[in-house]
């Protein structure tokens, strides 16, 4: 996993500075924000689904699949809404299956490979610690559709946070080997959390305002797990502007291959 982090460094570092295409508060801007949340959920769902039949035990296999389906459910609602706001006639399928990686707005965290179980749990912990306050804030925002989606998704995310916390505590405060691997996972994934909370004052919910909730959720779990946050100034980003790690294209290839081979195919 260290190797992959090194591989991704150049790409992320070379990411060109964001050039906002829309003025603050415009519809385009809001579409981009919703698309970002939708893609977070969609890519996270696809990654978690890759654990199916590979879980450390059958029960965990089903737990991860459940969480993947929760994320997929949120992704569908958000993609549909983004498509409607965009007004270009793209539905959830068009957005999920017919965009290339540069058009995806998800954060880098969710596209990172699953790694071992510890890496997956570290990723889920940070994602859920971000999604819970995010969806909670959305539930109280002025946009009715987003508020409804937030109200539904925050309960699911609260469970994801609970599930990830449970495992991070057990692995971190478990055996020497489990502690070593859990700490390595946190070290590897932590830099990618920076992007989640990057300020965006024009968004319906400015991610920077979620910092307090994120920190309190994460620091409590890590302290209990006897884990520490790495000191690093490396803060990879670019996902929100479509500049991704090389891992996303492979993930999308698998996600989109059927639809691209058989457009409009359905069960």
């Amino acid at each position, binding site marked *: 996993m260290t190797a992959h982090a090194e591989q991704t460094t150049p790409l992320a570092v070379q990411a060109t500075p964001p050039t906002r295409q829309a003025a603050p508060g415009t519809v385009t801007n809001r579409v981009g924000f919703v698309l970002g949340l939708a893609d977070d959920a969609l890519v996270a769902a696809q990654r978690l689904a890759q654990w199916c039949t590979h879980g450390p*035990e*059958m*029960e*965990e296999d*089903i*737990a991860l699949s*459940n969480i993947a389906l929760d994320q997929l459910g949120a992704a569908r609602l958000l993609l549909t809404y983004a498509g409607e706001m965009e007004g270009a006639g793209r539905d959830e399928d068009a957005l999920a299956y017919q965009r290339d990686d540069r058009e995806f707005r998800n954060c880098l965290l969710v596209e990172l490979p699953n790694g071992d179980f510890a890496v997956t749990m570290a990723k889920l912990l940070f994602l859920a610690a971000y999604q819970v306050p995010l969806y909670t804030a959305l539930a109280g925002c002025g946009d009715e559709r987003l508020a409804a989606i937030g109200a539904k998704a925050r309960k699911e995310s609260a469970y994801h946070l*609970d*599930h990830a916390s*449970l495992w991070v505590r*057990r692995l971190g405060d478990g055996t020497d080997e489990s502690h070593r691997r859990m700490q390595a996972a946190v070290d590897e994934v932590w830099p990618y959390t920076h992007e989640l909370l990057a300020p965006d004052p024009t968004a319906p919910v400015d991610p920077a305002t979620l910092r307090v909730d994120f920190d309190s959720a994460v620091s409590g779990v890590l302290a209990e797990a006897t884990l520490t946050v790495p000191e690093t100034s490396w803060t990879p980003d670019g996902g929100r502007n479509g500049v991704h790690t090389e891992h996303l294209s492979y993930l999308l290839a698998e996600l989109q291959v059927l639809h691209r081979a058989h457009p409009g195919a359905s069960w």
Partner: protein
Amino acid sequence: MSTHSEPTGQSGGAPPAPLWEVFVRARRGLAHTHVGSLHAADAELALRNARDLYTRRQEGVSIWVLPTAAITASSPDEKDAFFDPAADKVYRHPTFYEVPEGAAHL
């Protein structure tokens, strides 16, 4: 009497986590009903696993889990001694009095 023994489970690798029995209450007012069992390292994980395995389709509002090892069960060998004597004692059934008209829920 015999205590439930754990199945040896998977072949090779780490031994499976302890077995737990799951009870789900479908809704308020009903009793918790046994729905199945699962493996989990501890009670907290067992409860989460039970939630994921047995209440995915709104089957319940409350879950109990308890270690299978804590259950003391009757043995099939004792079936005769345990249960057959009740077969010819019809007077134990409440069938020897008339139910008053209109008495509900008896």
